[in-house]
């Protein structure tokens, strides 16, 4: 639990780490769009290559990147299995009761699996290379136009930043409470579902009590720091794009272009 104490951020000195968070967020969105535009195997290959190159450039060990897939592996497998078993069009390879496996189904499921994998890996790459704070700043900056429709961008950013700030505190707290209850003989991994759920109460209740206490104290601390004193709040940090970001934009644009060309068959040129 202590390993992930500070979000997922993996400290390293790399091209990707140094990019402006807005660049990474936008590139992430472009990549996701691209993944959904993929039809042919060539386009999947392009997505794969773009991802692999980004990972290599980020200097994060492949193992750490792959670890992030572990959490959602179950969902991916379930999706694949359901798609294989219930996809009924195409050449039938095997069939039993209402379940059939078809060639189309296999192809569809494998594409689905690739899409999910690419999505998870690309978003993980962003969170691995960007501190939560930076990510919040980037998001706040990208959302700024929403101020026009009276969307409270600042407040949302503060809420996010405080939430991020307290995640490690709560993880540590859960750790402590669990140990204390274990010391009193509690066990969290035996018995049926209901028994296990009930066993969580001695953790959840102190956690909630502590959350309220923290919220109370935090509210006072915010007041002491004059939160809401003026509508003209200033910001110390200003995000700035550098030459690096321009390089990243160009590469991302080129990648998107390739995907679109592959989808349209190079506008009929091939």
């Amino acid at each position, binding site marked *: 639990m*202590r*390993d992930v*104490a500070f979000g997922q951020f993996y400290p390293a000195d790399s091209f990707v780490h140094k990019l402006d968070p807005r660049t990474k967020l936008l590139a992430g969105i472009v990549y996701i769009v691209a993944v959904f535009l993929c039809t042919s195997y060539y386009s999947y290959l392009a997505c794969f290559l773009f991802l692999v190159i980004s990972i290599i450039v980020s200097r994060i060990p492949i193992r750490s990147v792959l670890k992030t897939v572990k959490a959602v592996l179950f969902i991916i497998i379930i999706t694949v299995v359901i798609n294989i078993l219930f996809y009924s069009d195409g050449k039938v390879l095997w069939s039993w009761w209402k379940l059939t496996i078809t060639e189309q189904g296999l192809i569809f499921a494998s594409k689905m699996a690739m899409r999910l994998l690419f999505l998870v890996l690309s978003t993980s790459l962003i969170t691995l290379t960007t501190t939560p704070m930076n990510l919040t700043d980037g998001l706040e900056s990208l959302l700024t136009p929403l101020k026009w429709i009276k969307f409270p961008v600042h407040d949302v950013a503060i809420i996010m930043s405080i939430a991020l700030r307290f995640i490690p505190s709560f993880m540590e707290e859960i750790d402590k409470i669990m140990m204390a209850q274990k010391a*009193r003989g*509690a066990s969290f991994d035996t018995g049926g579902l209901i028994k296990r759920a009930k066993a969580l109460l001695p953790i959840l209740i102190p956690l909630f009590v502590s959350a309220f206490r923290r919220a109370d104290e935090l509210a006072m601390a915010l007041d002491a720091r004059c939160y809401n004193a003026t509508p003209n709040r200033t910001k110390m940090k200003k995000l700035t794009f550098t030459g690096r970001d321009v390089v990243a934009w160009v590469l991302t644009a080129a990648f998107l272009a390739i995907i679109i060309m592959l989808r349209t068959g190079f506008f009929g040129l091939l």
Partner: protein
Amino acid sequence: MLVEVKNLSYVYSEKTPFEKQALKDVSFVVDEGQSVGIVGATGSGKSTLVQHLNGLIRLKNGKITVLDIDLSAKKPDLKALRKGIGMLFQYPEYQLFADTVASDVMFGPLNFGFSKTEAEEAARRAVNMVGMDYDSVKDRSPLELSGGQKRRIAIAGVLAYRPKILILDEPTAGLDPAGKREMLSLIASLKGEEISTVITVSHNMDEIAEFSQRVLVMNNGKLLYDTTPSELFYRLDVEALGLSLPHTVRIVRLLKEKNIILPEVLTEKDLVAALLAYAGGRNA
């Protein structure tokens, strides 16, 4: 021999950028009837060490035997272990969860296989032992109690299952002077009649000087000294370890610099007696 630790080492977050060696080759033995203080700067490995004794951190390197339970075994009997070695964490009042004092104190006993009536009896005994009246608090919510009272109830929650060994992590942290005094006299009263062995982790050297017969000094994950308080405070260089001297010892040392030799006292009571004896000799 109640506790035996042999060549214990531990590394947090192994093979990640956050890797940290918390314990290095720690060995010691605790016998029945001792009051042991564990001291050391923050991050010296004190907490990691005591969490091992209770099986809360899985033993990786070394050997630990507590109450004849071998923790290096494949599946040590953790229930029996935890019943025998009660552990109170820092700010134990934050772990209270039940809707009534009675059910919170009964939580431990029920987990350790007491019957409902046995658990209730145990709770009554334990709550009375920490100086509160069971019948008047049993149906109250633990959250309504004052800070000092909450901590007493948390202690009762551990005493209720009658552990042989009690581990206390900073038992007086955050209490006001009155609460602190009550807590210290409570701990002193438990030792002997109820608990045979008390292990206290503390930053407060005055409290260590007052209550421990033996001190384990942790430094950077190593057990640096295993000694007595008077040896530690009068012979060894405590300040170099980032620890302070108890006031009693400082006063005796200051007087020694002025060529006034007093006995090497540790407690405030003994200091006053020594000063009175000295002053009386002067006046006569």
